[in-house]
C-alpha cells in the first residue's frame, strides 16, 4: 500500500510538469498585456514598453519560463504583478472561504444526493423515483448563477432570513460562518446533488438486482439494513469515484459562486487575476488546483479498499 502511494505521488510529477508548461504557454501566448493594463488608459506606447521592461516581460519566453520553474522548485509561486505580495500569501488569505465553501457544499451534496439516490432506487418507477430524477434534471439544467440569484431573492431579499453576500470567518463563530455559507452551498451543490443522486440511483438499482440481495430478502433481512449495510456499501465505489470527479466540477462552480455571493475566495482571486493578466496568481492558483485534483483522485483510489476488500494495492 505504502509503495503504491509513493509510486502514485511520483506519477503526479509528470502531470504537474505538463500542467505547468500548458498553463505558462496558454497565459503567455494568449493576447493581453499586463503592462498595458497597469499603465492605464492614458498611457503611451513608450510608457507601456517601460513597464513591460520593468516586469521582465521583454525577456525571451524560455527565460521567463525557466525562471518561473526555478521559483516553483523552491516553493515560490512568485509575487502578484499588481500587489507585489507573494502569491502564496494571497492564496493563503483566500483559502479559508474557498475551503469552507467546498466542504459545506460537499457535505450538503453528498448527504442529500446519496439519500435521494437510495430512496429513488428503493422505490423504482414510483412518483418518488420520478420526482428525484426530475429534481436531478433540474439541478443539471439550472446554471449556478441562476440558482444563486433565485436563492438570494427568496431567502435574503424577500424573507430576510440570510445575508445576500459576504463571508464570515470561522474564528468569529460557527453560527455566523454557516449563515453566510448556506445559500452559496445550496447554489453550488445543486448540480453536484443531481450528479451524485443519479449515479447512486443507477448503481443501487444494479446492486439491488444482485442474487445476494434476493438471498438477504429471502432470509428475512429488514429493508433498511439491506439497503444501507449490504447494497449501499457495495454500490459505494462508483459513487465515490463520481464524488472525486465532481471535485473538478466543484472547482469550476466555486469561481462563479464566489462571484455571485461575493465570497473573497480563491475563485474570485483567479478571476480578477485573469482579467488583469496577473500571470503569477493565475499560474499559482492553477498549479495548486491541479495538485488538489490529483490528490483527491489519489484519496478516492485509496478509499476503494475501504468499501471493497477485494481491491488491494
Amino acid at each position: 500500500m505504502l509503495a503504491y502511494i509513493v509510486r502514485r505521488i511520483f506519477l503526479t510529477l509528470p502531470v504537474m510538469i505538463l500542467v505547468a508548461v500548458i498553463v505558462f504557454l496558454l497565459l503567455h501566448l494568449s493576447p493581453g498585456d499586463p503592462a498595458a493594463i497597469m499603465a492605464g488608459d492614458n498611457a503611451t506606447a513608450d510608457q507601456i514598453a517601460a513597464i513591460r521592461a520593468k516586469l521582465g516581460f521583454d525577456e525571451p519566453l524560455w527565460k521567463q519560463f525557466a525562471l518561473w520553474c526555478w521559483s516553483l522548485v523552491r516553493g515560490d509561486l512568485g509575487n502578484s504583478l499588481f500587489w507585489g505580495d507573494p502569491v502564496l500569501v494571497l492564496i493563503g488569505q483566500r483559502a479559508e472561504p474557498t475551503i469552507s465553501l467546498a466542504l459545506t457544499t460537499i457535505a450538503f451534496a453528498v448527504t442529500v444526493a446519496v439519500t435521494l439516490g437510495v430512496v429513488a432506487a428503493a422505490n423504482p418507477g414510483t412518483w418518488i423515483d420520478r420526482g428525484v430524477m426530475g429534481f436531478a434534471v433540474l439541478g443539471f439544467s439550472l446554471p449556478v448563477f441562476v440558482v444563486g440569484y433565485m436563492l438570494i431573492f427568496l431567502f435574503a431579499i424577500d424573507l430576510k432570513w440570510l445575508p445576500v453576500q459576504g463571508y464570515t470567518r470561522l474564528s468569529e463563530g460557527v453560527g455566523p460562518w454557516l449563515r453566510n455559507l448556506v445559500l452559496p452551498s445550496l447554489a453550488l451543490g445543486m448540480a453536484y446533488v443531481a450528479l451524485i443522486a443519479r449515479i447512486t440511483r443507477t448503481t443501487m438499482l444494479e446492486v439491488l438486482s444482485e442474487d445476494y440481495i434476493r438471498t438477504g430478502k429471502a432470509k428475512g433481512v429488514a429493508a433498511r439494513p439491506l439497503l444501507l449495510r449490504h447494497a449501499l456499501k457495495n454500490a459505494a465505489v462508483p459513487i465515490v469515484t463520481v464524488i472525486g470527479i465532481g471535485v473538478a466540477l466543484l472547482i469550476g462552480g466555486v469561481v462563479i459562486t464566489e462571484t455571485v455571493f461575493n465570497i473573497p475566495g480563491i475563485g474570485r482571486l483567479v478571476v480578477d487575476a485573469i482579467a488583469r493578466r496577473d500571470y503569477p496568481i493565475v499560474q499559482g492558483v492553477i498549479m495548486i488546483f491541479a495538485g488538489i485534483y490529483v490528490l483527491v483522485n489519489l484519496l478516492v483510489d485509496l478509499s476503494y479498499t475501504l468499501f471493497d476488500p477485494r481491491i488491494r494495492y
Partner: protein
Amino acid sequence: MAKIARRTLLKSSAAAAALAGAPSLARAQAHSSAARSIRAVFHGDVPTYDPIWTTANMAAYHGGMVYDTLFGIDDKGEAKPQMVNRYGYDAGNMTWTFELRPGLKWHDGTDVTSADIVPSIRRWAARDGGGQHMMERVRGIEAKDEKTFTIQLKERYGLVLDVLSKTSTPVCFMMRKREAETDPMQKIETVVGSGPFTLNLTETRPGTQYVYDRNPNYVPRAEAPSGISGGKVVKVDRVTFVNMPDGQTAVAALQAGEIDFYEIPQPDFMPQLESDRNIRIQVLNQLGQVGLIRPNFLHPPFDNVKARQALLHCVKQSDHMRATFGTSQYAKDSPSYFAMGTPMSNDANTGWYTGGQNFARSRALLAEMGYRGEEVLLMQATNIPYMSNSAQLLAQELRQGGFNVRLVAMDWSNVVQRRSVKAPPAQGGWNLFITSAGGTAVGHPILLAAHAATGDRGWFGWPQDEKHEQLRAQWAVGETLAERQRIAREIQTNAWNFVPQVYYGQWIQPAAMRSNIRNMLPVAEIIPWWNVEKG
C-alpha cells in the same frame, strides 16, 4: 429551605440585570460603530495603492482617501489652495511661489515639507499628460525652505493651477520624499499620505476590501467643502471599499442594507432602486463619461481624412445611447468636441450632427477617396457592455455607410494590448476601437491624452495635425475664459474637419445609496468621503 438574605437577593438581582444588560450594551456599541462606518461598492477593484503609477479611477479613489493635493477644484471648476496656504507669481508669471499651510503631517507623524512636494510633482508629471505638458515649459522646481517651493517657467503658461488641481487621473497627489523618489515606472509599496483617512492595513484584504479609518491628526481647512476643495471634515470613523464584481449582487446587498453605497448600478436596476424608499439616487459626476471611437491614422482607410469624415456621418449617438441605456434620462448626445456641460463645449462646425446620420454622404466621401473595400478591423471589448453594444451597432452603421467591416471580439485586456500595435491590421494591428473618457478630461483641450494630435508620440490612433497642436498651445496660454472659449471653438472647427476621433454619446451614471447617507459632495472623477454623514 435555605433563606436568602434581602441584601444577597438585591446583589444577585443587580448582577443578573447587569449580565442581562451586557449583550444589549455590546450590541448598542456595535451599532454605534456600524452607524459611523460606511461600506461602499465601486465600479471595480483598487488595482494598486499607487495612484500615480496608473490612471485607473479606483486608484484615484484610494488616493483621494489617503493623500492630499496642493490644490483642489471647487464646485465651479476653479482651482483653490488645499495643502497650499498662500501662493503667488512674479510680474511676468514666470516664477510661481507656493507656501504650504501649517499643521500638515504625514500619517507617520512627520511634517510635510517642500522636500516632499518637489519630487511628488516630478514623479506625477512623468506619468500624467497634463503634467508632461506643464513640465515641457518648466525650467525648474525648487524647495526654498521647509514650507516654500517654487516653479520656474521657461515661457508663459496659464495652466499651472489647472494641472495641479485636476481630478482626472492621475491626480497630483503628494507623497513622502522617499516614496516620491521612486522610479515613476515602478509602483510604490508603502502607503503613507497626509490625507483625511489612513489605510488600515490590518483589516484590508487586497482584492476584497480596503479599510480606511479617519485620520485623527488631519487638520482640515476652515473653508466650507466645495468640490474637492475646502475643509475635508471627516464625519464617519471608517469607510470600507468592498470589491463586489457582480452588479446584481451589489444591488441586492444595497437593498438588504449590507452595503451603504453603490457607485454604478446598471440602467436596468434603476427603476427597482428608485422605487425603494430606503435607497436614494444621486448624480455625483455631472459630466459623466464620453464615448470615444478611435480611428487609426496609420493605415487605410482612416489614414485618409475622407474616410474619417465618412465615419463621422455614419454614427448616430442617440442610437448608441439607446443600445445601452434605453430611454434613460442619464444619456445624451455630445456633438461638441469638448464634453457637453464643460466651459469649452460649443457648437462650431457641427453640421455633420445637425444634418443627422447620413449614409449617402458617407458613401460619397468613400467614393471620392477611391475606397476599394479594404477591410476595417473593429475591436469589440465583449466584457464591457456599453463598449460591446456600441461596437456591434457601429459595425452595422459602417456597413450601411459603405465600409467593409470585420468585428473582432475580444476582452478589454486584449483591446488594451492590441491598440498599442502600430503594425497593419493584418499583422496584429487595428483600424478602430471603442473606449470612453471622463467628461472633465474630454472637456479640457490639454488634460486628455486623446486630444493630442502629435502623431507617433501621441495616444493610440496616433492622429497628427499641426494646426490642432498650434491651437492647443494657444489655448494653454489663454488669459481669460472668453479667450479660451474662442480658441476652443477654433480647435473644434478644425477637429471636426480632420476628425481625430468620433463620439458615440455622453452619459452619467447615478450612484445609489442608503437613504441615511447624506451630504455626499458631487465631484467628477473622485468620490470624496469627507463631509459625508450616516444616520
